[in-house]
């Protein structure tokens, strides 16, 4: 059983906005094993991207990490000096983002942007970096790599730019690749190409992937382990088959039923009523209580803990509290 590459322990990240303090990441704990693909799934505003940015320590103001630990190979990243953290970024922990159209610097050539991490972390010379960059462009499946090396981002399509982002992330063969909704902005046929590419990379380099998405289809296809987040908290966590066959938390069940699925059409879609609560006014209760069908007395008064149940299946819900250890 490969040991844990990353361990989130009670991570807290708050945003101090004009209208009050938003607990974007509220006491989040889970871990990512080497060579494993973990999917963090949830709707907008649930804190999945902030969790990733906290791992990279790139939380922009007015956000601030206020508590907890993030262990990487046993070392707490939050305690590292900025210089030490910078050494890891792009080298051992790499990240790709959602919108390929704006993630590349429009006035620098593609080659320059791929070579940058190589020159910083691997100290390669200009020539060596150029050669390695062209290899990387070919690796991610883009033809005429030499020509692409000298071209500018606006000359490439969305799919090709996302491949370049992956090439940049892989340049220093990282231990962990964080992908924040990498295919949301792409057309479905291009998305299929990118997901295939990421699966090949995982097989070839045994890179652990932390995939952030709101699309359950992508989760089913890519994930080994799944974490479901809602309003800043982890409400369920389980291996992918366990989660899809036997979802415990009402919200996860709702999500699975609400999504229309090709060739098993329902008459009427199940809907989760209401909408995500206002992040500033969250009290000491289960945040899903006002939208939950099984809402009980206790759900409105006390917040459930994330307890572990059968074969590594965790859930934070009073329905299961009695059996939980």
């Amino acid at each position: 059983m490969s040991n844990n590459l990353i361990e989130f322990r009670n991570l807290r990240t708050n945003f101090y906005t004009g209208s009050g303090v938003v607990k974007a990441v509220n006491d989040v704990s889970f871990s990512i094993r080497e060579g494993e693909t973990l999917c963090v799934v949830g709707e907008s505003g649930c804190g999945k991207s902030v969790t990733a940015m906290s791992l990279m320590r790139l939380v922009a103001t007015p956000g601030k990490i206020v508590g907890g630990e993030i262990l990487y190979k046993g070392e707490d990243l939050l305690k590292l000096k900025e210089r030490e953290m910078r050494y890891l970024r792009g080298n051992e922990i790499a990240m790709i983002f959602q919108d390929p159209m704006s993630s590349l610097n429009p006035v620098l050539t593609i080659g320059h942007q791929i070579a940058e991490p190589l020159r910083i972390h691997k100290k390669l010379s200009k020539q060596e970096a150029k050669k390695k960059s062209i290899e990387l462009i070919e690796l991610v499946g883009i033809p005429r790599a030499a020509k692409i090396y000298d071209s500018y981002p606006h000359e490439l399509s969305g799919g090709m730019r996302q491949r370049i982002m992956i090439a940049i992330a892989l340049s220093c063969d990282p231990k962990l690749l964080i992908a924040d909704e990498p295919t949301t902005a792409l057309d479905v046929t291009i998305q299929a190409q990118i997901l295939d590419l990421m699966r090949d990379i995982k097989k070839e380099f045994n890179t652990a992937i932390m995939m952030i998405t709101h699309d359950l289809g992508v989760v089913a296809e890519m994930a080994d382990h799944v974490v479901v987040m809602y309003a800043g908290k982890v409400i369920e966590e389980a291996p992918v088959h366990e989660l899809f066959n036997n979802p415990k938390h009402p919200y996860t069940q709702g999500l699975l039923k609400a999504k229309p699925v090709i060739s098993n059409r329902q008459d009427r879609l199940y809907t989760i009523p209401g909408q995500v609560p206002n992040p500033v006014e969250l009290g000491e209760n289960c945040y899903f209580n006002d939208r939950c069908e099984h809402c009980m007395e206790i759900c409105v008064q006390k917040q459930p803990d994330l307890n572990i149940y059968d074969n590594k299946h965790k859930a934070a819900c009073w329905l299961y509290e009695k059996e939980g250890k």
Partner: protein
Amino acid sequence: MKQFLIRRILQMIPTLIGVSIILFSVFSMVPGNFIDSNQTISAERAAELKHIHGLDKPATERYFIWASNALKGDFGYSFQHKVDVTTVIDRYIWNSVLIAAFSMIFTWIIAIFIGVFSAVKKYSLYDGIITFIVFGLMSLPSFFLGLLAIKFIAVDMGWAPVGGMYTTGSSATGFAKVFDLLEHMILPVTVLTALGVGGLTRYFRTSMLDIINQDYIRTARAKGVKESTVIFKHALRNALIPAITLLGFELPALFSGAMITEKIFNWPGIGRVYLDALNYRDYFLLMGYLMFLSFLTVLGNLLADTLYGLVDPRVRLK
């Protein structure tokens, strides 16, 4: 690119014609002219002079004479300086360019540094002070700043000469002369820089603030790039590109001569010559100078757009 240039040049022509019509109609409203205001010459001589220079013909006719000469590069005769307008302009303009160039260089260097730092240290005390000073400089009337500079720096402190280009009557040559010139340039250049730096700093601060929030800056940081490189390579390069267009607009300012500052510091530039020409109602010189300035402005706009096309890879001017 060639087609773009042709199209823009073709567009310049109607604009310049329009400008010349407006200027000429304004001038035809000027009741007096050099000859009338000069009492020393007799009436017949005045009529004769006016005839030679075609001042007695109706306005529309005069416009076409003037315009046709202008196309041939002859902007008419300056009564006051008793020499062709073009020579007058050529004689004084380089003095203006001297202080304008220096102040432009200083303005840009200061504006880039202050603008970038106040954007990076957003909402800090440093940023607050800078914004206050920048707004102050933008709100000062140019002559008042000049007067204050002379009063407190030149007169009370005596750190710099009060005005003029050289110490009157000095026969210094070579390095001594250059040093004397530089000393005289201190105040005008400082005032011009102070007047110019406000707007540009605000421009760099706003555009840097916008760029720092872009996704590709986040990507650069995620690649482990040093913060200083992120700011000065990734961000600043994106801010400099639109700034190039501002360089185009500096062209007219470079040659127009800072009228007020030159008047206050008694600097023999084209701006000051323009003001004096006004008192003498030196008709053709005023007209020639204004047309020259308008031409520079239009050329500046063209230069700005062309520079933008050359520098920004996204805008390959097809």
